[in-house]
Protein backbone atom coordinates (compact mmCIF):
# COMPACT_ATOMS: atom_id res chain seq x y z
CA UNK A 1 0.00 0.00 0.00
CA UNK A 2 2.15 2.90 -1.22
CA UNK A 3 -0.84 5.20 -0.81
CA UNK A 4 -0.90 4.63 2.94
CA UNK A 5 2.90 5.01 3.16
CA UNK A 6 2.82 8.36 1.34
CA UNK A 7 0.02 9.49 3.61
CA UNK A 8 1.96 8.49 6.75
CA UNK A 9 5.08 10.27 5.51
CA UNK A 10 3.12 13.45 4.73
CA UNK A 11 1.45 13.41 8.08
CA UNK A 12 4.81 13.11 9.91
CA UNK A 13 6.22 15.88 7.73
CA UNK A 14 3.26 18.09 8.66
CA UNK A 15 3.82 17.42 12.37
CA UNK A 16 7.51 18.31 12.12
CA UNK A 17 6.72 21.41 10.04
CA UNK A 18 4.13 22.69 12.52
CA UNK A 19 6.55 22.08 15.44
CA UNK A 20 9.17 24.10 13.55
CA UNK A 21 6.68 26.91 12.85
CA UNK A 22 5.69 27.11 16.53
CA UNK A 23 9.32 27.18 17.62
CA UNK A 24 10.14 29.85 15.03
CA UNK A 25 7.17 31.97 16.05
CA UNK A 26 8.43 32.18 19.62
CA UNK A 27 12.23 31.94 19.38
CA UNK A 28 13.44 32.77 15.89
CA UNK A 29 11.30 35.68 14.67
CA UNK A 30 11.77 38.95 16.57
CA UNK A 31 8.87 40.81 18.16
CA UNK A 32 7.67 43.56 15.85
CA UNK A 33 8.35 47.16 16.78
CA UNK A 34 5.31 49.32 17.54
CA UNK A 35 3.39 46.56 19.29
CA UNK A 36 3.07 46.05 23.02
CA UNK A 37 5.68 43.57 24.30
CA UNK A 38 5.60 40.20 22.56
CA UNK A 39 2.01 40.59 21.37
CA UNK A 40 2.88 40.68 17.68
CA UNK A 41 3.80 36.98 17.78
CA UNK A 42 0.12 36.11 17.68
CA UNK A 43 0.15 37.15 14.02
CA UNK A 44 1.88 33.85 13.15
CA UNK A 45 -1.24 32.02 14.28
CA UNK A 46 -3.99 34.55 13.78
CA UNK A 47 -3.37 35.33 10.11
CA UNK A 48 -3.09 31.66 9.01
CA UNK A 49 -6.29 30.84 10.91
CA UNK A 50 -8.17 33.64 9.15
CA UNK A 51 -6.69 32.42 5.86
CA UNK A 52 -7.86 28.86 6.48
CA UNK A 53 -11.34 30.14 7.41
CA UNK A 54 -11.55 31.83 4.00
CA UNK A 55 -9.95 28.87 2.20
CA UNK A 56 -12.54 26.55 3.77
CA UNK A 57 -15.28 28.85 2.52
CA UNK A 58 -13.92 28.50 -1.03
CA UNK A 59 -13.53 24.70 -0.77
CA UNK A 60 -17.10 24.56 0.52
CA UNK A 61 -18.28 26.58 -2.49
CA UNK A 62 -16.53 24.31 -4.99
CA UNK A 63 -17.93 21.19 -3.30
CA UNK A 64 -21.43 22.71 -3.18
CA UNK A 65 -21.37 23.60 -6.88
CA UNK A 66 -20.15 20.10 -7.67
CA UNK A 67 -22.89 18.53 -5.58
CA UNK A 68 -25.59 20.37 -7.50
CA UNK A 69 -24.10 19.03 -10.74
CA UNK A 70 -23.22 15.48 -9.74
CA UNK A 71 -25.71 14.80 -6.89
CA UNK A 72 -22.98 12.66 -5.39
CA UNK A 73 -23.46 12.40 -1.59
CA UNK A 74 -19.67 12.44 -1.24
CA UNK A 75 -19.59 16.00 -2.60
CA UNK A 76 -22.07 17.00 0.08
CA UNK A 77 -19.82 15.36 2.67
CA UNK A 78 -16.91 17.38 1.24
CA UNK A 79 -18.87 20.63 1.58
CA UNK A 80 -19.85 19.81 5.15
CA UNK A 81 -16.28 18.84 6.07
CA UNK A 82 -14.91 22.13 4.72
CA UNK A 83 -17.60 24.11 6.56
CA UNK A 84 -16.90 22.30 9.84
CA UNK A 85 -13.23 23.27 9.62
CA UNK A 86 -14.16 26.78 8.50
CA UNK A 87 -16.34 27.16 11.58
CA UNK A 88 -13.52 26.03 13.89
CA UNK A 89 -10.88 28.20 12.23
CA UNK A 90 -13.03 31.33 12.02
CA UNK A 91 -13.77 30.85 15.72
CA UNK A 92 -10.02 30.54 16.41
CA UNK A 93 -9.25 33.61 14.30
CA UNK A 94 -11.92 35.61 16.11
CA UNK A 95 -10.62 34.56 19.53
CA UNK A 96 -6.93 35.19 18.76
CA UNK A 97 -7.80 38.53 17.15
CA UNK A 98 -9.84 39.47 20.17
CA UNK A 99 -7.00 38.56 22.57
CA UNK A 100 -4.61 40.68 20.54
CA UNK A 101 -7.09 43.57 20.50
CA UNK A 102 -7.36 43.40 24.26
CA UNK A 103 -3.58 43.54 24.71
CA UNK A 104 -3.14 46.40 22.23
CA UNK A 105 -6.24 48.51 22.77
CA UNK A 106 -7.56 47.24 26.11
CA UNK A 107 -10.80 46.04 24.61
CA UNK A 108 -11.78 42.61 23.35
CA UNK A 109 -14.13 43.96 20.74
CA UNK A 110 -13.90 47.25 18.85
CA UNK A 111 -16.35 46.81 15.97
CA UNK A 112 -13.40 47.06 13.71
CA UNK A 113 -14.43 46.26 10.10
CA UNK A 114 -12.19 43.18 10.02
CA UNK A 115 -13.66 41.97 13.28
CA UNK A 116 -17.11 42.44 11.81
CA UNK A 117 -16.12 40.56 8.64
CA UNK A 118 -14.80 37.50 10.47
CA UNK A 119 -17.78 37.57 12.84
CA UNK A 120 -20.15 37.50 9.88
CA UNK A 121 -18.18 34.66 8.30
CA UNK A 122 -18.66 32.87 11.62
CA UNK A 123 -22.41 33.62 11.46
CA UNK A 124 -22.60 32.24 7.92
CA UNK A 125 -20.96 28.99 9.02
CA UNK A 126 -23.27 28.79 12.05
CA UNK A 127 -26.31 29.44 9.83
CA UNK A 128 -25.10 26.77 7.40
CA UNK A 129 -25.11 24.17 10.17
CA UNK A 130 -28.40 25.43 11.64
CA UNK A 131 -29.90 24.81 8.19
CA UNK A 132 -28.37 21.32 7.92
CA UNK A 133 -29.71 20.42 11.35
CA UNK A 134 -33.22 21.46 10.34
CA UNK A 135 -33.55 19.10 7.33
CA UNK A 136 -33.92 15.37 8.02
CA UNK A 137 -34.04 14.27 4.36
CA UNK A 138 -30.45 13.79 3.21
CA UNK A 139 -30.94 14.63 -0.47
CA UNK A 140 -32.87 17.79 0.37
CA UNK A 141 -30.44 18.76 3.12
CA UNK A 142 -27.56 18.54 0.67
CA UNK A 143 -29.30 20.70 -1.97
CA UNK A 144 -30.52 23.36 0.45
CA UNK A 145 -27.14 23.59 2.16
CA UNK A 146 -25.41 23.90 -1.21
CA UNK A 147 -27.83 26.63 -2.29
CA UNK A 148 -27.26 28.58 0.92
CA UNK A 149 -23.48 28.23 0.63
CA UNK A 150 -23.57 29.64 -2.91
CA UNK A 151 -25.87 32.48 -1.86
CA UNK A 152 -23.60 33.36 1.08
CA UNK A 153 -20.55 33.27 -1.18
CA UNK A 154 -22.15 35.79 -3.52
CA UNK A 155 -22.93 38.26 -0.72
CA UNK A 156 -19.57 37.95 1.08
CA UNK A 157 -17.51 40.05 -1.35
CA UNK A 158 -19.81 43.00 -0.67
CA UNK A 159 -18.99 42.71 2.98
CA UNK A 160 -15.25 42.29 2.65
CA UNK A 161 -14.72 44.85 -0.09
CA UNK A 162 -17.55 47.36 0.23
CA UNK A 163 -18.12 47.81 3.93
CA UNK A 164 -14.61 48.02 5.46
CA UNK A 165 -13.30 50.70 3.11
CA UNK A 166 -15.91 53.14 4.30
CA UNK A 167 -14.76 52.82 7.90
CA UNK A 168 -11.52 53.75 9.44
CA UNK A 169 -9.72 50.72 10.76
CA UNK A 170 -7.59 49.98 13.82
CA UNK A 171 -6.46 46.70 12.31
CA UNK A 172 -2.79 46.50 11.35
CA UNK A 173 -2.38 46.50 7.57
CA UNK A 174 -2.92 43.18 5.93
CA UNK A 175 -0.04 41.54 4.15
CA UNK A 176 -1.46 42.49 0.82
CA UNK A 177 -2.06 46.23 0.87
CA UNK A 178 -4.95 48.13 -0.62
CA UNK A 179 -2.90 48.72 -3.77
CA UNK A 180 -2.59 44.95 -4.27
CA UNK A 181 1.21 45.10 -3.98
CA UNK A 182 2.91 42.92 -1.41
CA UNK A 183 4.03 45.05 1.52
CA UNK A 184 7.37 43.65 2.37
CA UNK A 185 8.53 46.00 5.07
CA UNK A 186 8.09 43.23 7.64
CA UNK A 187 11.34 41.97 9.04
CA UNK A 188 12.49 39.05 6.86
CA UNK A 189 12.60 36.44 9.66
CA UNK A 190 9.04 37.40 10.64
CA UNK A 191 7.95 37.12 7.05
CA UNK A 192 9.56 33.70 6.66
CA UNK A 193 7.86 32.46 9.83
CA UNK A 194 4.51 33.84 8.70
CA UNK A 195 4.71 32.21 5.28
CA UNK A 196 5.93 28.99 6.87
CA UNK A 197 2.93 29.09 9.17
CA UNK A 198 0.54 29.78 6.28
CA UNK A 199 1.89 26.71 4.50
CA UNK A 200 1.66 24.66 7.71
CA UNK A 201 -1.93 25.69 8.45
CA UNK A 202 -2.96 25.04 4.86
CA UNK A 203 -1.44 21.56 5.21
CA UNK A 204 -3.24 21.10 8.52
CA UNK A 205 -6.53 22.08 6.88
CA UNK A 206 -6.14 19.61 4.05
CA UNK A 207 -5.08 16.81 6.43
CA UNK A 208 -8.16 17.28 8.63
CA UNK A 209 -10.36 17.74 5.57
CA UNK A 210 -9.13 14.50 3.97
CA UNK A 211 -9.69 12.60 7.23
CA UNK A 212 -13.29 13.80 7.39
CA UNK A 213 -13.97 12.99 3.74
CA UNK A 214 -12.41 9.52 4.06
CA UNK A 215 -14.62 8.85 7.06
CA UNK A 216 -17.70 9.92 5.07
CA UNK A 217 -16.63 7.68 2.19
CA UNK A 218 -16.37 4.67 4.51
CA UNK A 219 -19.80 5.43 6.02
CA UNK A 220 -21.42 5.71 2.59
CA UNK A 221 -19.78 2.49 1.41
CA UNK A 222 -20.95 0.64 4.52
CA UNK A 223 -24.52 1.81 4.07
CA UNK A 224 -24.39 0.83 0.42
CA UNK A 225 -23.36 -2.70 1.44
CA UNK A 226 -26.07 -2.92 4.09
CA UNK A 227 -28.72 -2.05 1.53
CA UNK A 228 -27.58 -4.61 -1.02
Amino acid sequence: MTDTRVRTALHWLLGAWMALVIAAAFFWAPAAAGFKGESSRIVFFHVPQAWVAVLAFCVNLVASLRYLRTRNPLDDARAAAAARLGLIFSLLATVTGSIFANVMWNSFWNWDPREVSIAILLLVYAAYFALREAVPDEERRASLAAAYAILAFVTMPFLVFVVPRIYWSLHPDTIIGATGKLKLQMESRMLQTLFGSLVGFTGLFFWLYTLDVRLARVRLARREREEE
Partner: protein
Amino acid sequence: MAGISVEFSRVGKRFGARPVLAAVSGTLRPGEVLVVAGPNGAGKSTLLNILAGVLRPSRGAVSYRRGDVDVPRRDWFENLGMASPDMAVYDELSALENLRFFGRLRGHAVADATLGGLLETLGLPAREHHRPVGTYSSGMKQRVKLAQAALHAPAVLLLDEPSSNLDAAGHEAVAALVARFRPHAAVAVATNDPREIAWGDARLDLAL
Protein backbone atom coordinates in the same frame (compact mmCIF):
# COMPACT_ATOMS: atom_id res chain seq x y z
CA MET B 1 -50.13 12.15 -29.47
CA ALA B 2 -48.74 8.87 -28.21
CA GLY B 3 -49.12 8.12 -24.53
CA ILE B 4 -46.32 8.28 -22.01
CA SER B 5 -44.97 5.35 -20.08
CA VAL B 6 -43.15 5.73 -16.79
CA GLU B 7 -40.36 3.28 -16.06
CA PHE B 8 -38.79 2.97 -12.66
CA SER B 9 -35.94 0.70 -11.74
CA ARG B 10 -34.73 -0.17 -8.25
CA VAL B 11 -35.93 3.11 -6.72
CA GLY B 12 -35.43 3.38 -2.98
CA LYS B 13 -35.72 6.13 -0.40
CA ARG B 14 -34.28 6.64 3.01
CA PHE B 15 -35.13 9.41 5.46
CA GLY B 16 -32.05 9.77 7.62
CA ALA B 17 -31.12 6.26 8.69
CA ARG B 18 -34.67 4.97 8.21
CA PRO B 19 -35.39 3.19 4.92
CA VAL B 20 -38.98 3.86 3.76
CA LEU B 21 -38.84 2.25 0.35
CA ALA B 22 -36.53 -0.53 -0.80
CA ALA B 23 -35.52 -1.00 -4.44
CA VAL B 24 -38.77 -1.40 -6.40
CA SER B 25 -39.06 -1.61 -10.17
CA GLY B 26 -41.93 -1.49 -12.60
CA THR B 27 -43.61 0.33 -15.47
CA LEU B 28 -46.72 2.45 -15.88
CA ARG B 29 -48.08 1.90 -19.37
CA PRO B 30 -50.58 4.04 -21.24
CA GLY B 31 -53.95 2.33 -21.33
CA GLU B 32 -53.27 0.58 -18.04
CA VAL B 33 -54.06 1.16 -14.39
CA LEU B 34 -51.28 0.16 -12.00
CA VAL B 35 -52.46 -0.44 -8.46
CA VAL B 36 -49.85 0.11 -5.75
CA ALA B 37 -50.97 -1.75 -2.65
CA GLY B 38 -49.45 -2.44 0.73
CA PRO B 39 -49.90 -1.72 4.43
CA ASN B 40 -49.58 1.79 5.87
CA GLY B 41 -45.95 2.84 5.98
CA ALA B 42 -44.89 0.53 3.16
CA GLY B 43 -43.92 3.51 1.01
CA LYS B 44 -46.88 3.86 -1.39
CA SER B 45 -46.97 7.65 -1.17
CA THR B 46 -43.18 7.84 -1.28
CA LEU B 47 -43.15 5.79 -4.49
CA LEU B 48 -45.80 8.01 -6.11
CA ASN B 49 -43.88 11.16 -5.13
CA ILE B 50 -40.72 9.72 -6.64
CA LEU B 51 -42.59 8.79 -9.84
CA ALA B 52 -43.94 12.34 -10.00
CA GLY B 53 -40.44 13.75 -9.60
CA VAL B 54 -41.30 15.78 -6.51
CA LEU B 55 -39.11 13.61 -4.31
CA ARG B 56 -35.55 12.67 -5.16
CA PRO B 57 -34.91 8.93 -4.67
CA SER B 58 -31.93 7.89 -2.55
CA ARG B 59 -31.19 5.33 -5.23
CA GLY B 60 -32.51 4.06 -8.53
CA ALA B 61 -33.93 6.02 -11.45
CA VAL B 62 -37.23 7.00 -13.07
CA SER B 63 -37.71 7.80 -16.74
CA TYR B 64 -40.67 9.04 -18.77
CA ARG B 65 -40.81 7.78 -22.33
CA ARG B 66 -43.05 8.74 -25.22
CA GLY B 67 -42.69 5.79 -27.57
CA ASP B 68 -38.92 5.36 -27.78
CA VAL B 69 -38.11 8.97 -26.94
CA ASP B 70 -37.03 10.02 -23.48
CA VAL B 71 -39.07 12.90 -22.01
CA PRO B 72 -36.68 15.34 -20.29
CA ARG B 73 -37.29 15.87 -16.59
CA ARG B 74 -38.33 19.50 -16.99
CA ASP B 75 -41.27 18.38 -19.15
CA TRP B 76 -42.58 15.78 -16.68
CA PHE B 77 -44.87 18.06 -14.74
CA GLU B 78 -46.83 19.35 -17.72
CA ASN B 79 -47.74 15.76 -18.61
CA LEU B 80 -48.65 14.87 -15.07
CA GLY B 81 -51.74 15.13 -12.89
CA MET B 82 -51.63 14.17 -9.26
CA ALA B 83 -53.84 14.04 -6.19
CA SER B 84 -52.59 12.85 -2.81
CA PRO B 85 -53.38 13.30 0.89
CA ASP B 86 -50.34 15.57 1.36
CA MET B 87 -51.68 17.99 -1.27
CA ALA B 88 -54.20 20.77 -0.90
CA VAL B 89 -55.71 23.55 -2.97
CA TYR B 90 -55.94 27.14 -1.76
CA ASP B 91 -58.35 27.70 1.13
CA GLU B 92 -58.82 31.41 0.41
CA LEU B 93 -59.91 30.79 -3.19
CA SER B 94 -63.17 29.25 -4.33
CA ALA B 95 -63.20 25.92 -6.17
CA LEU B 96 -63.61 27.70 -9.50
CA GLU B 97 -60.86 30.24 -8.74
CA ASN B 98 -58.53 27.40 -7.79
CA LEU B 99 -59.14 25.58 -11.06
CA ARG B 100 -58.84 28.82 -13.04
CA PHE B 101 -55.49 29.49 -11.34
CA PHE B 102 -54.08 26.03 -12.06
CA GLY B 103 -55.46 26.21 -15.59
CA ARG B 104 -53.72 29.54 -16.22
CA LEU B 105 -50.44 28.18 -14.87
CA ARG B 106 -50.67 25.21 -17.18
CA GLY B 107 -51.58 27.37 -20.14
CA HIS B 108 -55.00 25.78 -20.57
CA ALA B 109 -57.42 28.67 -20.93
CA VAL B 110 -60.41 26.52 -20.03
CA ALA B 111 -63.84 28.15 -19.97
CA ASP B 112 -65.57 28.46 -16.60
CA ALA B 113 -68.41 26.30 -17.90
CA THR B 114 -65.98 23.43 -18.61
CA LEU B 115 -64.36 23.77 -15.20
CA GLY B 116 -67.78 23.84 -13.56
CA GLY B 117 -68.76 20.75 -15.54
CA LEU B 118 -65.64 18.92 -14.37
CA LEU B 119 -66.45 19.78 -10.73
CA GLU B 120 -70.01 18.56 -11.21
CA THR B 121 -68.94 15.20 -12.68
CA LEU B 122 -66.81 14.77 -9.56
CA GLY B 123 -69.90 15.44 -7.46
CA LEU B 124 -69.52 19.06 -6.45
CA PRO B 125 -72.81 20.84 -7.24
CA ALA B 126 -72.73 24.22 -8.99
CA ARG B 127 -74.06 26.15 -5.99
CA GLU B 128 -70.83 25.35 -4.10
CA HIS B 129 -68.38 26.47 -6.80
CA HIS B 130 -68.06 30.08 -5.62
CA ARG B 131 -67.50 29.51 -1.91
CA PRO B 132 -63.92 29.61 -0.53
CA VAL B 133 -62.49 26.09 -0.30
CA GLY B 134 -61.64 26.74 3.37
CA THR B 135 -65.35 26.42 4.18
CA TYR B 136 -65.67 23.00 2.47
CA SER B 137 -65.93 19.59 4.11
CA SER B 138 -62.96 17.27 3.61
CA GLY B 139 -64.88 15.27 1.01
CA MET B 140 -65.62 18.39 -1.03
CA LYS B 141 -61.96 19.42 -0.85
CA GLN B 142 -60.98 15.97 -2.11
CA ARG B 143 -63.21 16.51 -5.17
CA VAL B 144 -61.57 19.86 -5.96
CA LYS B 145 -58.17 18.23 -5.59
CA LEU B 146 -59.15 15.50 -8.07
CA ALA B 147 -60.45 18.15 -10.50
CA GLN B 148 -57.08 19.92 -10.19
CA ALA B 149 -55.34 16.68 -11.17
CA ALA B 150 -57.57 15.97 -14.17
CA LEU B 151 -58.00 19.54 -15.43
CA HIS B 152 -55.36 19.48 -18.17
CA ALA B 153 -56.06 15.90 -19.36
CA PRO B 154 -52.55 14.71 -18.41
CA ALA B 155 -50.90 11.67 -20.00
CA VAL B 156 -49.85 10.40 -16.58
CA LEU B 157 -52.29 10.39 -13.67
CA LEU B 158 -51.10 9.53 -10.16
CA LEU B 159 -53.81 9.07 -7.51
CA ASP B 160 -52.88 8.45 -3.90
CA GLU B 161 -55.88 7.15 -1.91
CA PRO B 162 -58.30 8.91 -4.26
CA SER B 163 -61.46 7.88 -2.37
CA SER B 164 -60.26 8.99 1.05
CA ASN B 165 -62.83 11.26 2.71
CA LEU B 166 -65.38 10.35 0.04
CA ASP B 167 -68.79 8.67 0.39
CA ALA B 168 -70.09 5.91 -1.89
CA ALA B 169 -71.19 8.43 -4.54
CA GLY B 170 -67.75 10.02 -4.39
CA HIS B 171 -66.13 6.64 -4.89
CA GLU B 172 -68.30 6.14 -7.99
CA ALA B 173 -67.16 9.52 -9.33
CA VAL B 174 -63.51 8.53 -8.88
CA ALA B 175 -64.17 5.20 -10.60
CA ALA B 176 -65.71 7.12 -13.52
CA LEU B 177 -62.68 9.43 -13.65
CA VAL B 178 -60.27 6.50 -13.74
CA ALA B 179 -62.39 4.83 -16.45
CA ARG B 180 -62.27 8.03 -18.49
CA PHE B 181 -58.44 8.20 -18.29
CA ARG B 182 -57.76 4.50 -18.72
CA PRO B 183 -57.93 4.30 -22.56
CA HIS B 184 -55.16 6.80 -23.26
CA ALA B 185 -53.34 7.66 -20.02
CA ALA B 186 -50.95 5.84 -17.71
CA VAL B 187 -52.67 5.71 -14.33
CA ALA B 188 -51.27 4.70 -10.95
CA VAL B 189 -53.52 4.32 -7.90
CA ALA B 190 -52.04 3.83 -4.43
CA THR B 191 -54.67 2.27 -2.22
CA ASN B 192 -55.74 -0.32 0.32
CA ASP B 193 -59.40 -0.16 -0.60
CA PRO B 194 -60.44 -3.52 -2.15
CA ARG B 195 -62.90 -1.71 -4.49
CA GLU B 196 -60.01 0.34 -5.89
CA ILE B 197 -57.62 -2.61 -6.05
CA ALA B 198 -60.14 -4.17 -8.43
CA TRP B 199 -59.48 -1.39 -11.00
CA GLY B 200 -55.92 -2.56 -11.58
CA ASP B 201 -54.67 -4.06 -14.82
CA ALA B 202 -51.36 -4.55 -13.03
CA ARG B 203 -50.52 -4.63 -9.36
CA LEU B 204 -47.46 -3.81 -7.33
CA ASP B 205 -47.38 -4.94 -3.71
CA LEU B 206 -45.12 -3.13 -1.31
CA ALA B 207 -44.14 -4.81 1.94
CA LEU B 208 -43.11 -3.16 5.17
